[in-house]
């Protein structure tokens, strides 16, 4: 049985003030196996976020259903940890209390919260910043905190929506290595949305390419690069081959998306 089943999920956003409704997702199905690291790759506006948000329970599908370990998803919950592209740390809480947030909502004793929070903060390399407030952190540090906050809940899977999209290139690559390292350590099922081809290949065990609006899954490519992967894999011929193929797939879609906008 799959960890996650997306079955004929479809989404149409109603039009506002006499604008036509937006068909963001045609009926889409996808099976995600346990321990998979799936990246959803597609040009912007193709419905990646919509698909991820439906899995998160933040958006209700117009039709179809999402099953997590066989149970239908009916709303957001702590079993699906999410990291957003925008910085969503609670600015009034310290880094440590941000990581404790979900544990506190669950009613864990404070001492236990702190122990868990400090463990995950150490894992994302933020030891020493526990008492900082988000405004005192760089973008990369904020997203690492957000990652620790999602992981601290011990979710069944991790959903990430272009979490490194706003970071500079170098920070972004370090963050990819960090996330991949965490995944290699305990293989939590991950669904990662991106429009960056290198990012998609580097971390994934499967890259799912989405086509331009209305979004649908175009192809599904297993990535057979060995683990543990280091940044050096990006310069191998195998990596280049994947990249060539995906660049071609994405290019067609991007051209379609751009001409549609006209």
């Amino acid at each position, binding site marked *: 049985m799959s960890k996650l089943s997306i079955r004929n999920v479809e989404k149409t956003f109603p039009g506002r003030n006499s604008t036509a409704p937006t068909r963001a997702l045609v009926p889409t199905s996808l099976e995600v196996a346990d321990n998979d690291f799936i990246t959803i790759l597609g040009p912007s506006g193709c419905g990646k976020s919509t698909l991820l948000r439906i899995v*998160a329970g*933040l958006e209700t599908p117009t039709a179809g259903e999402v099953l997590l370990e066989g149970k239908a998803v009916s709303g*957001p919950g702590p079993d699906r940890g*999410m990291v*957003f592209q925008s910085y*969503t740390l*609670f*600015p009034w809480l310290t880094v440590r209390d941000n990581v404790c947030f979900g544990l506190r*909502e669950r009613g864990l004793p404070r001492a236990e919260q702190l122990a868990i929070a400090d463990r995950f903060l150490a894992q994302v390399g933020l030891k020493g910043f526990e008492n900082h407030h988000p405004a005192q952190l760089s973008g990369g540090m904020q997203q690492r905190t957000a990652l620790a906050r*999602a992981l601290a809940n011990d979710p069944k899977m991790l959903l990430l929506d272009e979490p490194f999209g706003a970071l500079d290139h170098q920070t972004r690559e370090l963050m990819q290595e960090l996330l991949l390292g965490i995944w290699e350590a305990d293989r939590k099922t991950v669904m990662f949305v991106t429009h960056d081809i290198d990012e998609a290949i580097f971390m994934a065990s499967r890259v799912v390419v989405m086509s331009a609006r209305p979004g649908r899954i175009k192809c599904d490519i297993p990535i057979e690069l060995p683990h543990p992967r280091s940044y050096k894999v990006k310069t191998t011929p195998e990596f280049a081959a994947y990249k060539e193929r995906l660049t071609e797939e994405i290019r067609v879609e991007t051209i379609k998306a751009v001409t549609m906008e006209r």
Partner: protein
Amino acid sequence: MSPLFTPLKPVAPALRTVLGISCFVLFFLGWGIATYGGFVKPLFLASPGDTLTAGIALFREFGFAEDIAVTVWRVFAGFAMAAALAVPLGILMGAFKPVEAFFEAFVSFARYLPASAFIPLLILWAGVGELQKILVIFIGSVFQLVIMVTVIVSGIRSDLVEAAYTLGAKRDGVVLRVLLPAASPQIFEALRLVLGWAWTYVIVAELVGASRGIGHMIIDAQRFLDTGQMIFGIFIIGVIGLITDLLFRALNARLFPWAKGR
């Protein structure tokens, strides 16, 4: 163009203080020239010296300290009652749209009812005692405050709320531990503004049927054409306003250091 007058460019703290004080100095200078220079008759405008003398006499002979205490108490009592009702109601209206839909039209209507126009009615209902004065301030502040708090809470970033849901927060957790802390600094700022307006209502309330208070003193002084006392009374209101304003700002910075510079 002078670099000092670059749009939005902050000014050095020392210069800021000097400029702020200069405005007061100019004000007193203009006042002094107008009165000591004989440009305005003392009957219409007392000189700064005469005003000060009148003020000292007020404290020494007429128990002005008690007037001040009575007025301050009325403002704070009326304002506290308004805040105690308006802040929770505003939060509920901001958070729960059916509550907003129920109250919004009525509150918007009530907010335009001039508090001073209620004075004759309130005298009829509550007599000329303390309650009537406090109610004027209450009516003058409560509707404004409800609207302001509603707008503040409605404007809280929805991605923070979504993040809280994916971390396992339920409805009450979102209201109490996301919306409330996120809105607190701005609610505090709204309280500071509305408190300023409350001062204008109290004086109006004291102009009618009061036996004590700053407003009553001003009306008394009018009977004797004592412009010195009148001006001193008005002046004291400004000074108290300035002090509460500074206290509010200091408290805001102290309570919500994380909101600094937003």
